[in-house]
């Protein structure tokens, strides 16, 4: 018997006027998967993640999270998910502790639990040593860590992360990766977008690639490698053996990318 997916979309489409930013996307993310969602700039990654988290209405199609229709059960779905959106969704004129406590209560925690977890998360994220500092005065990396802390304060079953490691230093990135890995081992599902393919390759068990609004590949890394190999063989041979293909190579082959012809900018020093 097939396990019901944690995240499932059917013909998910979003149009902006004439442009279909996301066009008929069918995603399936199984429980406990660390899922990487990749695509070139403007491919539709952020639009998709916004629709999955209720920040943007789809033009058509269906979204189910944990078996619940997002459109008809938005509150029930949101209670079980955590989100770090593109803009991080922070309240700049609160301190870190105040913001986390606020976030916890908005997700239904009682005052004491929210305060305790806020305190623990600040320690964990190494943000506790400047308790009076306002969020607006945090560095970009600190804000990312705080946004991540707010996303997990209620212990979500599904976590959506839009570029979670952007602007985060190596030490903090290590801390965050370790936390995410622990969440996976405890049964959570994580859906992330990132431009850093090495991170996705190291963390994610499954990957989907979106290009010009359409889903062009989906599966485990091994399945993608095999797919690329099969396509290469059908097209007349493959230069690299499939075991050695990196995610970057898979990505470039799937989206048909190549380096642009070298151009000279004569005025540039």
């Amino acid at each position, binding site marked *: 018997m097939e396990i019901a997916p944690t995240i499932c979309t059917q013909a998910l489409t979003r149009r902006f006027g004439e442009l279909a930013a996301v066009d008929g996307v069918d995603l399936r993310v199984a429980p406990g998967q660390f899922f990487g969602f990749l695509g070139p700039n403007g491919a539709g990654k952020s639009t998709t993640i916004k629709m999955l*988290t*209720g*920040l*943007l*209405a789809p033009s058509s199609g269906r979204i189910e999270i944990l078996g619940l229709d997002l459109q008809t059960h*938005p*509150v*029930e*779905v*949101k*209670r079980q*998910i955590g*989100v770090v*959106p593109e*803009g*991080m*969704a*922070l*309240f*700049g*004129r*609160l301190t870190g*502790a*105040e913001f986390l*406590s*606020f*976030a916890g*209560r*908005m*997700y*239904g*925690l*009682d*005052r*004491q639990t*929210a*305060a*305790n977890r*806020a*305190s623990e998360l*600040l*320690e964990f994220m190494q943000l*506790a*040593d*400047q*308790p*009076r*500092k*306002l969020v*607006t*005065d945090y560095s970009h990396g600190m804000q990312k860590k705080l946004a991540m802390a*707010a996303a997990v304060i209620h212990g979500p079953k599904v976590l959506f992360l839009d570029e979670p490691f952007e602007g985060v230093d190596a030490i903090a990135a290590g801390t965050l990766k370790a936390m995410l890995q622990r969440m996976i081992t405890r049964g959570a599902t994580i859906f992330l977008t990132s431009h850093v393919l090495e991170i996705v390759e190291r963390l994610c068990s499954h990957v989907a690639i979106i290009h010009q609004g359409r889903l062009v590949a989906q599966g485990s890394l091994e399945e993608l490698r095999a797919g690329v190999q099969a396509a290469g063989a059908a097209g007349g041979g493959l230069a690299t053996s499939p075991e050695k293909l990196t995610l970057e190579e898979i990505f470039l082959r799937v989206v048909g990318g190549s380096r642009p012809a070298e151009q000279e900018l004569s005025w540039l020093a």
Partner: protein
Amino acid sequence: MGLARNGLRRIAAAIADVVQQLKLPKMNFGRPVSTQLKAIAELRWRMFVNGLRSRRGKTEFASRMVVSSVFALGGAGGFLVASFVSYLLVSQGKPEYLALILWPILLFWQFFPVMATALTNNPDSTELLRFPLSYRSYFLVRMAFGLFDPACAIGSLGLLGVWLGVTVAQPLSFVWTAVVLATFGVFNLLLMQMVFAWLERWLAQRRTREIFGLVFILLMLSLQLIGPIVAHLNKASRPEFRRAFEIGSQVQEVLPPGLASDAIAQALHARIVVGLSSLALLAAFGLAAGYLLHLRIRAQFAGESLSETAGRTAVPQIQTPQVGWDLPGFSQAVAAVFEKEMRYLARSGPMLLTLIMPVFMLVVFRMGPLNPIHHSGGLSRTPDMAFPGAAAYALLVLTNLVYNNFGADSGGIQFFYASPVQFRQIVLGKNLAYAAIVVVNTVLAWIAVRYLYGAPHLAVTVATMAGLLFAAPLNFSAGNLLSLYSPKKRDFSAFGRQNATQTTVLASFGMQIVIVGFGVGVFAVARYYNDLWIAVVLFLILAAISISIYVAVLRSMDRLALERRETLLTELCRA
């Protein structure tokens, strides 16, 4: 003598410093500066034109036209009054009394932007600092932005009226009068920008905010003495009163409106040298304001950060978890939003200043038009007029918040949409915070009225509270709708930047007119029957209707917030 010489030397050095700063990088208006200024002007023009592509932009433009027309009417009125009074004063040989017009112009110019912050429109020029802008260009851009402020436009029209009146009465003085009034205008422009810049600085950090608050409270307390002094002077013999008036008159003569008036009057009396000295003193005031403004702008230009960051502690402290506020009878989410709103307000100097304006205005009016005159009937006593007025103003100062209640959340709006909380709860938490402020402000206003004017009648007090019960929910209902339909990102820490869209300004105007219309009607009926308790009953009936409307609007919040999701997120999350 030596001290005076030292003082003069320091002032000269300070002026030289300003001149030196403004000279950088080139003395002439060479290509780099003019190109940058042109580029900024073009940028604002393109932003305006591009804004017209959307329906929201077109609505905004139409609203701006209507609001501008209202301002133009006000400015035209001021222009006519100023020109007529100036003409009368000069033609009757009393040009030294021109100060009577110049003082109101100065007070309007300086106070209007603080009292009506929703209408103040100074874009954030600090965003330009990323470009290789010279200090001089930056300073000029700041000044140019200030020119578009309604207070500046209306004040300038007033000055133009004075110039016309004086010129018609004494045609040969038109050049001199123009020079004096232009100097006075520039002084006003610099003063307004300077006051805003320093207020922003003082109110940006907790420590300076506390000092400012303490000074303000002391000022308020000291102003309490004005009441007894005025009462004493009213009872005092005529010579004593005249003496006090003379002292006041002498003091105002050395202040900018008095100096401008004197400069014109002396020239009309053919005492050019004396007139020149007054003009020079007026210009010195302008330079002083300009220098103080320069200090602030220079600091901004140098990349000043007004953050409240406490120093990093050497050893991480074990923090006791801070438990959030409880709001009995309401959910955790409502209480959390309430707490968040209160914390935001407490950390916003400009908003705090706006919120204390009702009490401040009571004190100002106590010194001027609202001297306590006691009669027997309700509403004919000053306290009976002052309390409803102050309570209405307490509600009015919240317009900025109530009609754009997601504006300060900026990117945080994403959090609201991602969280499992119904929008009606979020909006309720915000409205409860505003209601709490109205209540606190009204209580403070009552106490101020009690001590400044005498206690209002019980019926007036109750009728005013009932009136608020009618007006507040109606304002909140309209505000909640406009917050979704016409949001605008705003910075709580910045002073004098536009806080609402023109559509919101126009709609809130309309709502205030409706509310004031009802209020006047109710009080008129009560006065007709000579029983203020009738007003209480009528207001309570209106309050019941108003609360029903509020509940209906609140219930529709979830649906409307979803419908308006993209507009809200696009507007509030933009960089």
